[in-house]
C-alpha cells in the first residue's frame, strides 16, 4: 500500500526526515511513535501531500506521490490536530461539503449516516462552534472517512478525548480495518497504540529506529522498545 524509499525533508537548513525507508501492507494498522520533533507529523504530512519531500520516493497504491497527487488524494483520509471543520457550519453541512468535494454520491445520506455513527445525530443541524472538543473530534473523524478512504492518516487522534470519544474513534478505526483500510497513526498514547495497532514504528531524529509487529496488545513490549530506542534505557 505504501512504499517509502530514502525519504528526506529539509526545512530552513534543518533535516527533519533523514532517509526514511518504510513499506506498509494493505490492511495494516501502524502506530508511529517517537519524541516531540522526531518528524512523525512531517512524515504524515508528506503522505497527505501537504508537504513536498526534498528527496526520495513515495508510492501509495503504486502511484507516485509527485506525479499522481490527485489520484492519491482520493485514496486517503487525513485527521490532523485541527478539526478542518467550518465553525459556523453544522455537522451535516460540513460533511456534505467535504463529501461533494470528494465526489461522494448521495453526500447527504452519507453525512447523516456518519453523524449517527459517531453518536451525534441529535446535533445534526447545530453549528460546530457550539461543540465541545470531544464532539468536534468525532465530527472531524467522520469528515476524514466521508469518502471511505483506503488509507487513514491520523495525527494524535486520541489527544483531548474523553473515554466515550476514544471508544468511538477506536471502533471507527477497527471497523475501517475490517473493511481493509490501512491506518497510519501518529500517537503518544502507548495504550491506544497497543489496543488497535498491529505494528509499531519508532522514529527518532528523523530516522526510523525500530519497526516491529505487535501481538496480543502487548503494551509492555511497546513501552520497553520505546524506552530502549528513545530514552536509551535497557
Amino acid at each position, binding site marked *: 500500500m505504501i512504499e517509502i524509499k530514502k525519504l528526506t525533508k529539509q526545512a530552513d537548513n534543518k533535516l527533519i526526515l533523514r532517509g526514511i525507508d518504510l513499506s506498509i501492507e494493505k490492511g495494516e494498522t501502524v502506530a508511529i511513535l517517537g519524541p516531540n520533533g522526531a518528524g512523525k507529523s512531517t512524515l504524515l*504530512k508528506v503522505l*497527505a*501531500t*501537504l*508537504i*513536498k519531500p526534498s528527496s526520495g520516493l513515495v508510492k501509495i497504491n503504486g502511484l507516485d506521490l509527485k506525479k499522481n497527487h*490527485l*489520484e492519491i*488524494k*482520493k485514496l*486517503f483520509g*487525513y485527521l*490532523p490536530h*485541527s*478539526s*478542518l*471543520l*467550518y*465553525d*459556523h*457550519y453544522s455537522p451535516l*453541512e460540513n460533511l456534505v*461539503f*467535504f463529501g*461533494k*468535494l*470528494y*465526489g461522494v454520491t448521495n453526500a447527504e445520506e452519507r453525512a447523516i449516516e456518519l453523524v449517527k455513527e459517531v453518536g451525534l445525530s441529535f446535533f445534526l443541524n447545530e453549528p460546530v462552534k457550539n461543540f465541545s472538543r470531544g464532539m468536534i473530534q468525532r465530527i472531524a473523524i467522520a*469528515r476524514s472517512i466521508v469518502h471511505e478512504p483506503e488509507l487513514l492518516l491520523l495525527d494524535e487522534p486520541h489527544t483531548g478525548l474523553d473515554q466515550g470519544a476514544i471508544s468511538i474513534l477506536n471502533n471507527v478505526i477497527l471497523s475501517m480495518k475490517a473493511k481493509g483500510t490501512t491506518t497510519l497513526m501518529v500517537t503518544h498514547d502507548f495504550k491506544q497504540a497497543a489496543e488497535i495497532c498491529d505494528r509499531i514504528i519508532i522514529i527518532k531524529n528523523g530516522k526510523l529506529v525500530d519497526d516491529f509487529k505487535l501481538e496480543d496488545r502487548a503494551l509492555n513490549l511497546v513501552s520497553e522498545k520505546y524506552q530502549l530506542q528513545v530514552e536509551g534505557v535497557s
Partner: protein
Amino acid sequence: MIKTAFLLAKKDLYSELKTKQVLTTMIIFAGLVILVFSFAFDPANNTTKAVIPGVIWVIVVFSGILGLNRSFLSEQRNDTMQGLLIAPMDASSIYLGKFLANFTMMLVVELVSIPFLFLLFDFKIIGSIPYFILIMFIGSFGFISIGTFLAALAANSKSSEMLLPLLLFPVTSPILIGVVQATRIILTNMEKFSSALAWIQLVSAYDVIFFVLCFLLIEYVLEV
C-alpha cells in the same frame, strides 16, 4: 475543476449568508465613503460631477480590500485550508472558487452603492450605461483576480492585513488608472469615446494576462 470551483464559491457565499461579516462591512464602508464625499463636495455644484468616477473606484478598491483580506484568513481557523489542499482538486480550483466568491460580493457592493452614489449626487449619466457596466466589470475582474492571488500570498504572513494593500496597489495601478480614465470619459464626455475604448482594451489585456498568471502560480502560493 469548474464544478469544484463553484462548490467552493457556494460554500464561501453561504458562509457569508450565515455570518454576514464581510459583505455587511463592505457595504457599510461604501455607504460611509459616499456620505463623506457628499459632505465634502456640494452635489449641486457641476464641478462635483468630475469626482464621481474617482469616488466609484475608491469604493471598489477599499471595500474590495476588506473582502479580500478575509477570503483566505477565514480558512486559517481550524486549518480548513489544509482540508481544501488535501481534497482531490488542483490549487487552481481553490483560486477560482475564491475568485468567484470575492467577485460576486464585489458586484453586490457595486450594485448597492453606485445607484446610491448617483442618487445622492443627483448624477445623470450622459454617456453609455452598457459601456459603464462593461468598465465596472473588467475593472472589478482585474482587481479581484489579482487581489485574490495576493490575499492567498499575504495570508501566510503575520501582518497580512497590512501586507495585502502594499502588494495590491502597485500591481493593480495600471488597472485603476485605466478604469478611472475610461469611467470619466464614458460618464461625462462621450466625444472622447475612442480614448475610452483604448483604456478598456488595455485593462482587458492586463486582466487576461494577470488572471492566467495567477491561475498558474497559485499552486506555489498555497503550499503549506
